[in-house]
């Protein structure tokens, strides 16, 4: 039956190709857009996985999640920010399950090395940062607690900064000027690459105490809090809030965020985006199906005589039904197959620019839907063909 169907379709090559194109575009679009959506989601998931499940964020200002997501109050670093490194010390002192608090403050400063000048993001933090953010060094070592305590002028360089300053050798032990003051390069971070368009290697890390003196600020942009009890993050979050309120902060001055909560919010948003992208693409699949139904109706009318002749020589209702259904299914399956190839091909090509993640379910669903579209759009015309009276069909001019 498939052989007859293919034969009939080859007679109208251009028409068949154009009909297939509708399905090709639909299937390819579903796979491509879903792979982009999933790529975004997996990047976000990786970022959170790297942070681990035993971390809690403390940030200035009130951040809301859920329906009205967004930040109330001022951005970090403004006068509303009342978080200082001392806040972290208070938290660690009062809650036994807290292993470490790591304040992070960021700013931009001019950096010069052997006549090369650059403006570079400077990050002030404590030695525990290396453990929490998993920041191994390619040269030298991350500074230790003594650098924190002694406000030593040591700097850990990101790879991008080295590149910008044309440093190709191991610079450990050499001098560099940051905001006019001389620092000793203690180490170079292993390159992490960029995530979501953000270069993670474009920074210089210095001890928090040194940062406070150099830039004359005592505010932190955010704080990591590491707990030994990841099973009870929610109660730890409540305990941290209590400590902050007791240390004369107001409820709207800060946010204590469980990363799971952040991840859930991000996943929900990205999931909706992926579904919306897939849904929009699925519309073109439906349009493709309408194209098949349309062309099959034309074909049935055009081939009235053929149907009459086939019936005259002994074709039954089922013979004619299955012939036209086979044509519709062949069109949609071919379209589905080509669509899968083009969709995955484009996703792989696009991988050079954005992270795409091809999922088997999107291939399966779009292929299945294209088959379903073929059956449903072909059924009407096929029934119309099978019901034709052989005499009327033979007499049709």
């Amino acid at each position, binding site marked *: 039956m498939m052989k007859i169907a293919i034969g009939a379709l080859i*007679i109208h090559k251009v028409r068949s190709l154009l009909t297939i194109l509708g399905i090709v575009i639909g299937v390819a679009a579903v796979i491509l857009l879903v792979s982009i959506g999933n790529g975004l989601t997996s990047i976000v998931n990786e970022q959170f996985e790297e942070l681990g499940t035993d971390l809690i964020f403390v940030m200035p200002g009130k951040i809301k999640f859920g329906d009205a997501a967004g930040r109330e109050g001022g951005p970090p670093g403004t006068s509303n920010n009342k978080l200082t490194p001392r806040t972290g010390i208070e938290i660690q002192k009062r809650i036994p399950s807290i292993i470490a608090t790591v304040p992070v403050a960021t700013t931009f400063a001019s950096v010069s090395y052997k006549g090369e000048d650059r403006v570079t993001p400077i990050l002030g933090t404590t030695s525990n940062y290396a453990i929490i953010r998993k920041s191994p060094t390619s040269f030298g070592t991350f500074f230790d607690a003594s650098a924190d305590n002694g406000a030593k002028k040591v700097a850990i360089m990101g790879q991008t900064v080295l590149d910008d300053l044309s440093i190709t050798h191991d610079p450990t032990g050499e001098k560099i000027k940051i905001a006019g003051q001389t620092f000793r390069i203690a180490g170079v971070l292993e390159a992490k690459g960029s995530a979501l368009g953000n270069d993670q290697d474009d920074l210089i890390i210095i001890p928090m105490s040194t940062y406070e003196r150099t830039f004359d600020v005592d505010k932190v942009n955010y704080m990591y809090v590491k707990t030994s009890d990841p099973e009870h993050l929610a109660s730890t979050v409540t305990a941290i809030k209590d400590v902050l309120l007791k240390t004369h902060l107001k409820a709207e001055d800060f946010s204590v965020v469980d990363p799971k909560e952040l991840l859930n919010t991000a996943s929900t948003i990205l999931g909706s985006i992926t579904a919306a992208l897939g849904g929009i693409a699925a519309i073109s699949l439906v349009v493709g199906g309408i194209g098949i139904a349309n062309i099959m109706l034309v074909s049935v009318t055009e081939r009235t005589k053929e149907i009459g*002749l086939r019936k*005259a*020589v*002994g074709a039954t*209702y089922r013979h004619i039904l299955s012939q036209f259904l086979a044509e519709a299914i062949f069109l949609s399956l071919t379209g589905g197959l080509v669509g899968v190839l083009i969709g995955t091909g484009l996703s792989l090509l696009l991988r050079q620019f954005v992270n795409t993640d091809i999922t088997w379910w999107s291939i399966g669903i779009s292929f299945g839907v294209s088959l379903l579209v073929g059956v449903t759009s072909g059924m009407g015309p096929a029934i119309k063909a099978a019901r034709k009276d*052989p005499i009327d069909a033979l007499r049709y001019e």
Partner: protein
Amino acid sequence: MLIATDNISKSYTVGGSSIDVLNDISLTIDKGEFVAIMGQSGSGKSTLMYILGLLISPTSGTYLLNGDDVSTLPGDTRAHLRNGKIGFVFQSFHLLPGVSVIDNVKLPLLYSKQNGPSEQAYAKELLEKVGLSDRLHHKPNQLSGGQQQRVAIARALINKPDVLFADEPTGNLDSKTGAEIMDIFDTLNKEGKTIIMVTHEKSIARHAKRIIHIQDGRVV
């Protein structure tokens, strides 16, 4: 007796009123006969052929084919009988465009699920018989009208039918080509094939051994 009809009638309902196309047709046709059904346009001769050819069922009356009552069979049963026992040759050939001559001839085999090497050989034999053994893989649009009708005859014979129906088989052909086609029918009849032909041309009807005249839906 191959065909026997007893008072078969056919009427159509058009716009609420009933139109009688055939009235009380009783006739018998024996195996091996060559019968022409003659009549004017609108006389009902084609309708009679469609009933005898099991394309449609009579409104009333009895039709026995090979002694079996086939008057009121469901569509699919009639399709199976058409496939195995009846061959059709139409005025406008009705070949499938874009399909080779040999595959056109083998089309009825598709619906009887017999398509082996012996059927392939028989299709070639039939095409040789109608003088087209050098055209097996041509497409219908590469053939003349007479050649197309020869393909149609070969197709009608592929399942070795009991009876061959021809509906104005020379109607679309010039007289010389028409005569060649009629020669083929004469030969087939001589070999014992039962042929029932519908025509309005006396010169064509003359090839038949018996002529049944139809006028206003009745045998006259």
